[in-house]
């Protein structure tokens, strides 16, 4: 079997760069390309960087000549960063995926697509199944813009997979990640001076350690499966317990005032609480991970509690060093 040729979108993100580094070291991988508008934070040895916006129509001409057999779609904006409007995030998510798929149509060498999607599609609901399995994505109406984005992306890839039976399309539904390196939502939330919570609510939260998030992505590239797969650590943790482990004081806010208070916090430069994140902090969410373990063959090394503890320990060490 000839070496594999892989394209990674969103290569400048932590997961994108780390994935490229692992694939570069893999003798079975012949070629790695990375698509992003930014450069990776660390230099990559043999990855060819394509500095284009994922929405750029020139992708249609750029992708086929690379002859890639695998595309890892790692550019779904979960939380618009500084200077990115929700509109633009939506644009990158939906139009970007559409453009990427159009380019894939023109690239007959492709036999697998791995999407780093989100468990956000299940929403966060008071009366939900405590462990969503992959077939429960449509139990509840899609309530937020991000949820609708994820659903649209899943639809696009689902339709593509139906049209091209030879292409295995894995839709990885990630729970929020936590870890020392990433600056994702949960670590940022836990490093606020006081941590806002909903008064009288203490939902179950399920996370994935960032190394495990990476491990799952690598495993899915090596062994692509068809359809959605939940990616999460084993077990859940109560929100209050998580904040206490992080050693932070909480600021309980009555639910009718929560959006207003956090919007005011955002204006003075504190964390942006997206509607999805607000619902997560109120109702929580847990997913079933049987498919990840049995079909992709990946078992996360950290449980949710261990992931939080590892994050807390590394942050303490960093505080001592500083």
């Amino acid at each position, binding site marked *: 079997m000839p070496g594999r040729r892989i394209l990674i979108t969103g290569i400048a993100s932590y997961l994108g760069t780390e994935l490229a580094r692992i694939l570069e070291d893999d003798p079975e991988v012949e070629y790695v390309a990375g698509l992003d508008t930014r450069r990776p934070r660390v230099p990559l040895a043999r990855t060819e960087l394509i500095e284009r916006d994922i929405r750029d129509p020139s992708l249609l001409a750029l992708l086929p000549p690379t002859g890639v057999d695998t595309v890892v779609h790692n550019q779904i904006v979960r939380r618009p960063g500084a200077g990115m409007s929700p509109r633009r995030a939506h644009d990158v998510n939906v139009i970007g995926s559409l453009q990427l798929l159009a380019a894939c149509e023109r690239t007959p060498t492709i036999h697998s697509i791995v999407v780093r999607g989100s468990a956000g599609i299940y929403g966060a609901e*008071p*009366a*939900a*199944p*405590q*462990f969503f*399995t992959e077939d*429960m994505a449509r139990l509840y109406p899609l309530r937020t813009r991000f949820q609708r984005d994820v659903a649209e992306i899943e639809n696009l890839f689902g339709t593509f997979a139906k049209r091209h039976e030879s292409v295995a399309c894995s839709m990885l539904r990630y729970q929020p990640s936590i870890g020392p390196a990433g600056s994702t939502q949960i670590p940022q939330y836990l490093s606020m001076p006081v941590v806002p919570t*909903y*008064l*009288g*609510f*203490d939902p*179950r939260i399920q996370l994935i350690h960032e190394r495990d998030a990476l491990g799952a992505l690598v495993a899915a590239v090596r062994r692509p499966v068809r359809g959605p797969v939940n990616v999460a650590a*084993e*077990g*859940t*943790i*109560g929100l*209050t*317990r*998580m*904040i*206490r*482990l*992080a*050693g932070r004081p909480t600021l309980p806010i*009555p*639910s009718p005032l929560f959006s207003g208070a956090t919007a005011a916090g955002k204006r003075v430069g504190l964390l942006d609480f997206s509607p999805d994140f607000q619902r997560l902090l109120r*109702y929580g969410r*847990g997913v079933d991970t049987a498919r990840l373990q049995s079909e992709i063959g990946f078992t996360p090394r950290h449980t949710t509690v261990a992931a939080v503890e590892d994050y807390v320990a590394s942050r303490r060490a960093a505080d001592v060093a500083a």
Partner: protein
Amino acid sequence: MSDGRPDPGDGPLPLRPVVSFLRALRGGLDGGNGLTGAIADAALALPREARESLEAATRRLGGRYEEDDWGFDEQFADAALPFLEFMFDRWWRVHAEGVQHVPSHGRALLVANHAGIMPWDATMMGVAMMREHPLPRPPRFLVLDWAFDLPYVSVAMRKLGGVPASPFNAIRLLEEDELVAVFPEGVKGAGKSYRERYRVQRFGRGGFIEIALRTGAPIVPVAVVGSEEIHPKLAESSVLARLTGAPYFPITPTFPLLGPLGVVPLPSRWRIEFGEPVDLSVLGPGAADDRALVLELSEHVRDLIQRMVYDNLVKRRHAFA
């Protein structure tokens, strides 16, 4: 305290350890210990029991406690037990019968009649299980979805072993060989009027039978008599229900007249009877798709429970005495 003597050492007995604790705490803090360190040192001045509960409290504040995947918090449940036992023994003077019918290990589905909007009946069944069963184990109980949208109530429910009433949750719990309590009357049971309080309502679409068939769990019918009187519903207000988002808004002799005090349940006398298990496992999981069979079995179990309710009503004699 009332005589204003300055020396706290001569104060009423329970005060003495508190004062010496506070002194030691201040000493520890002045000595440059951190707050938790100072508390731990100062705790040595306390009697053993107080010291242990203080240690437990600091452990909890540090996040060092366990919750299982479902959010059940054994420590919390243990801490709540004395209060629930008080409700069991003194408030409702519960008489529990037939607890030995509950299998001591493996999956089982407790099916009970339901009255009152708060899941007091579920917690009392739990106390009966914990106290009178030879091999006690806490039941998980399915709670009306709405409770999980309420501040504090949602947390307490989760930590005591409640899960949202979704068949997916019930099946998963049974597959983990847990003891699961369900109230198939649902909102209809919670919202029945005082006049028809002892009539067991229709058991929905028989979902609990499907669950029992799919998982092969035996059904233990349970009759709870007495929860009907704790919040006697005289009328309901659809306007207030819509305003609060509640499935229905009860008007009782005390609620909403007395405000939050009106939520305090009346001290009726209770009986809980656990019936002989009904084993459906011979029918196999495929039987769950047979609508007619499911409805028939559901009606059969409803009948069993209705009969047990009437039996226990007679045995109880008076509702409040």
